[in-house]
């Protein structure tokens, strides 16, 4: 007896969490501001283990934040800026209401703003942390840079996004760190490796957007605000590490056209616009801070890492060599892009692997040579037929470029000629595990990578074999009939059934396992059943896929035969 009476919900998990509304009130912010603050600071809700306890006995749906997080937000200087902005809006509205245009103008001139530098530094204490999170930033910037200059968001934001994304692409080109490209129905996925981090981003196809109504652009804009800041700092740092000038400039070692533009660029207004468009042409290389010799790459020494034996080292070295080879995939090739192909994407990819690329002068600035150039090796075309063709170059469809990049080798061009039905475009991101379904095209590709020549399918042989089989079957049947006629009453000596030892052993083993499974503990059994269920399902799916493929192949083969007969 004695002591203070314990009350419910005064300690433990109930005090560690705070509901969203309470947090908002504690910070004295409107919901929109609270949302912005959470986005900028990277605060997300938490799911308590015992929701009812935290909710003080109620089972109503609520969003909970950690109280510590909210306390952390209270010290954020940006909260003060939000309040300032609120007051600014109030004053402005008042001035407009009273028709005091002068005051309104003055107020607008003093519009309070804020910077996110410290938040970026706080959220990403090291540069690698920031790089790790840059995927979403890139996808968002690339999306925003395709928005129209009217309506949905500020023109400055769109231009900034465009600038940053172009800077990023130029950096990737300079570093030659693009690894994989994938043409999906959503857009184009790019994967690059920067400072050991794998970074994937998605770029929409160049079309006008059908702006949906169920999207809150304010949320998107807040994210973009954060992402542009992040990407800007990252770009700066990356350019610095490569000794490149930031903001980037293109080199002057280009033909007279470029010089002409440079003269123009003396006149301030055109400066930013032109340089951006030149940059976005992606055809010229960038100015370096220190002009370095061409062959600056020193031979690197290789040291075995800790706990790594000779084999692993060799493996690593081989991977390194492969990568080097991939980086020089298109070196020495000269490409010309026809006007119907996605210019920016192709120029980016080709330049990333060391190709020279140009396009029609009227299409975009930055074209370096003409269609008539005799040294062009590949002409990328995406139309069913072409009237005038040069004899000393390949006319390929754009998929060839992407497939080559993913295969890390120059694929045979025959499958990608103009007007030819393209082979399927496979995702380079899928790594099939054992037991997964592997499409036959992938198998073919793997064989090609190993250096085996694909064997031509010879339909005639198959059919001949089939016929042979048919004949032999007939003979067997005939023999059987004869025997039947002869031996209708005969008693033949019994034959000892051959005992399949192997099979019997297997069966015994299977039975043993089945019996052991029966003796499992309930908890283990549950887990085991779950795992086995998953395995069986994946096997089933793989089987279904291969059956589907087989049926499709047979159907197409039959179609072909029909056509031939006709």
């Amino acid at each position, binding site marked *: 007896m004695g002591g203070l009476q314990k009350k419910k919900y005064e300690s433990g998990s109930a005090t560690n969490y705070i509901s969203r509304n309470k947090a908002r009130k504690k910070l004295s912010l409107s919901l929109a501001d609270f949302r912005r603050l959470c*986005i900028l600071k990277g605060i997300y809700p938490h799911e308590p283990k015992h929701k009812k306890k935290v909710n003080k006995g109620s089972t109503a749906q609520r969003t909970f934040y950690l109280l510590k997080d909210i306390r952390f937000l209270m010290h954020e200087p940006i909260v003060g800026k939000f309040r300032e902005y609120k007051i600014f809006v109030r004053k402005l509205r008042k001035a407009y209401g009273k028709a005091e245009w002068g005051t309104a103008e003055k107020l607008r001139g003093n519009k309070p703003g804020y910077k996110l530098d410290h938040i970026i530094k706080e959220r990403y204490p090291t540069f690698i942390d920031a790089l790790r999170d840059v995927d979403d930033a890139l996808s968002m910037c690339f999306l925003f840079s395709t928005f129209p200059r009217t309506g949905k968001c500020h023109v400055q934001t769109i231009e900034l996004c465009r600038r940053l994304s172009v800077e990023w692409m130029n950096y990737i080109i300079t570093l030659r760190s693009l690894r994989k490209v994938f043409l999906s*129905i959503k857009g184009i996925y790019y994967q690059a490796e920067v400072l050991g981090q794998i970074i994937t981003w998605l770029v929409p196809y160049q079309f006008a957007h059908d702006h949906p109504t*169920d999207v809150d652009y304010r949320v998107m804009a807040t994210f973009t605000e954060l992402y542009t800041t992040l990407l800007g700092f990252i770009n700066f740092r990356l350019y610095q590490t490569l000794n490149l000038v930031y903001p980037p400039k293109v080199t002057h070692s280009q033909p007279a056209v470029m010089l002409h533009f440079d003269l123009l660029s003396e006149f301030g207004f055109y400066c930013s616009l032109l340089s951006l468009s030149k940059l976005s042409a992606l055809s010229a290389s960038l100015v370096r801070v220190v002009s370095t010799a061409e062959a600056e790459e020193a031979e690197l020494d290789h040291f075995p890492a800790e706990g790594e034996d000779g084999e692993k080292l060799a493996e690593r070295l081989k991977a390194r060599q492969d990568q080097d080879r991939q980086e020089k995939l298109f070196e020495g090739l000269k490409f010309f892009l026809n006007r119907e192909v996605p210019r920016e994407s192709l120029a980016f990819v080709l330049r990333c692997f060391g190709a020279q690329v140009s396009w029609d002068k009227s299409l975009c600035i930055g074209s370096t040579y003409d269609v008539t150039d005799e040294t062009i090796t590949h002409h990328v075309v995406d139309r069913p037929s072409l009237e005038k063709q040069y004899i000393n170059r390949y006319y390929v469809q754009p998929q060839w470029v992407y497939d080559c990049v993913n295969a890390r080798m120059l694929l045979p061009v025959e499958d990608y000629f103009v007007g030819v*039905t393209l082979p399927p475009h496979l995702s380079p991101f899928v790594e099939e595990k054992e037991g997964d379904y592997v*499409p036959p095209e992938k198998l073919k590709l793997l064989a090609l990578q190993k250096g085996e020549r694909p064997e031509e399918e010879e339909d005639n042989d198959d059919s001949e074999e089939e016929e042979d089989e048919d004949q032999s079957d007939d003979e067997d049947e005939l023999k059987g009939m004869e025997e039947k006629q002869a031996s209708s009453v005969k008693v033949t000596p019994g034959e000892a059934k051959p005992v399949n030892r192997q099979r019997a052993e297997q069966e015994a083993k299977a039975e043993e396992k089945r*019996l*052991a499974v029966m003796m499992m503990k309930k908890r*283990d059994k549950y887990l*085991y059943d779950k795992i086995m269920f998953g395995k069986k399902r994946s096997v089933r799916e793989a089987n279904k896929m291969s059956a589907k493929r087989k049926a499709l192949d047979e159907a197409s083969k039959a179609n072909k035969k029909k056509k031939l007969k006709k």
Partner: protein
Amino acid sequence: MCLEPARLSHSLHITLCPSLSISLFLSLSLSLSLSLSLSLSLSLSLWLSDYPHIGYDLDGKKIFKPIRNKDELDEFLDKMENPDYWRTIHDKMTGTDVCLSDEQVDLVHRLQQGKFGDVNFNEYEPAIDFFSNEVMIHPVTNRPADKRSFIPSLIEKEKVGKLVHAIKMGWIKPRRPKETAPQYYDLWAKEDPNAILGRHKMHIPAPKMRLPGHEESYNPPPEYLLTDEERQVWEQQDPDERKLSFLPQKYLSLRAVPAFSRFIQERFERCLDLYLCPRQRKMRVNVNPEDLIPKLPRPRDLQPFPTLQSLVYHGHSSLIRSISISPSGQWLVSGSDDCTVRFWEVCTTRCLKTMEVGGPVKSVAWNPAPSISLVAVSYGENVILVNPGLGDRLICSATDQLISSYEEPEEVKDQQVQWAVPEGKAQEQGQRLILTHPKAVKQVSWHGRGDYLACVMPDDGSSLQVVIHQVSRRRTQNPFHRNKGAVQCVSFHPSRPYFLVATQRYVRVYNLIKQELTKKLMANCKWISSMAVHPGGDNVICGSYDCRLAWFDLDLSTKPYKVLRHHKKALRGVAYHKHYPLFASGSDDGTVIVCHGMVYNDLLQNPLIVPVKVLKGHIITHDLGVLDVAFHPTQPWVFSSGADGTVRLFT
């Protein structure tokens, strides 16, 4: 000085005031009286209409209405004859008739037509623009300009002076140019990985977006495209349930690929996920399923146990509820629902004897004593003791003698069970005693010595559910005053004076000598169907209708040492082998599972239970499979009886 003239004028005004005011008053009163007379006369004419006068003159005398003696006829005549009748108006005020002049008639006509009363008024006079664009020689107003318009403003001068002074002093500065472009610099120039805030130590980075598979390609392999049925299923599914959030599509060339309509939505959803989703670290179980399987001794090392179905005993036409084997292991007895009891030779599957009884046989039990050849058979309310006459003749005759040597005691007690000796054909068939019970008997069970026989008559809550008969003295006892729950089966302990009674959920162990409850075993199942006691006496197994088999260790606990859930359907029978460490269970799923159940003499070592064989053979009929199992007393063979009317021997 200044104020004085004003005061003077004021006073003057006051002095002048009376005469002026009077004259004013007069004129006012005059006009008032005029208007008053008018209004008065109007109003008077209204209220004086019933009086002979129309008003009053200045002297206050009545003014009488003019004498008017016109009646309707006069009026009519006047209308007919007077040419000016149409312009004559009766004046109500004066009571006289007034004839309108030509001008007046004209005025009335014009007013009626909505024209101006004055004939000469021109409403369409040309407009004269005073303030026109034409510069005239004279100004419109000739007011001279103010002086202040020629003199610089002092107030403005003061204001400008102040501003100039403030600028000179540096108090006012020009507005700073606004920074429009964001400024970037090397933010991570001095990065310190240890300077992580406390909150960010706990931070869970957002998972990356899932990378696309082959199905998202603009030109996927054909097997990734959905067939028509799959597409229909996809369309009918809820968007949250769909495995793919988009429909895979194939385009012949890159040129043909359209914009993805849900691109912005997907990016927005990702944004929502980033700031609205709770994050949690989930440990993925990374277990090799083979490691989960317990390491058991190989069944091959635990031989002997039955592995093959070797013999089938055909003969019964209905399901066989019970089987029993003679202690010598040479004979087998089976009781079936076709109202027969059959005796078989084990090795040859020959049916040596068929005995018809008066009802479906519920239970048969061979007397376990080797010196007595007696089988208890229960059907309906009767239990008959049969001497099958198989095997050693000496034993058979000794048994007959034993039964016939009974002498009735002097004082006959009233028993609840009638003991009768059959006669005639029944006697010839081998029936030696018939015990008639008050209720249907479900199970019979012999004591190890062979003198006592326990019978079960299940009936929930009744005091008479279990009776124990002593054959040699033809005496019946009811051991329990009352039973809790419906008794399912009973069994004698093989070595000690214990009696086990299984009700629906519990097994009670009674000490027969002390006449008390020693133990109550909780079976953890819904409904016990069968029970068997290990020949060592320390272990009991219970089969239940909810597919479980519970192994009890009587020394350890009242809870099962192990619960086995090997069968898929209800268990019907369980049995222990007498010598070998084996037990078997038969179930409705048509299988008999033989387990190795080694009990060690060392009390510290737990029994080892390993399933060694699943025996299949019985055909499931009417959802019933195996109904009873029994082991051979000497060999590692197991018999099972099933609903398909066969008994099978597995060796």
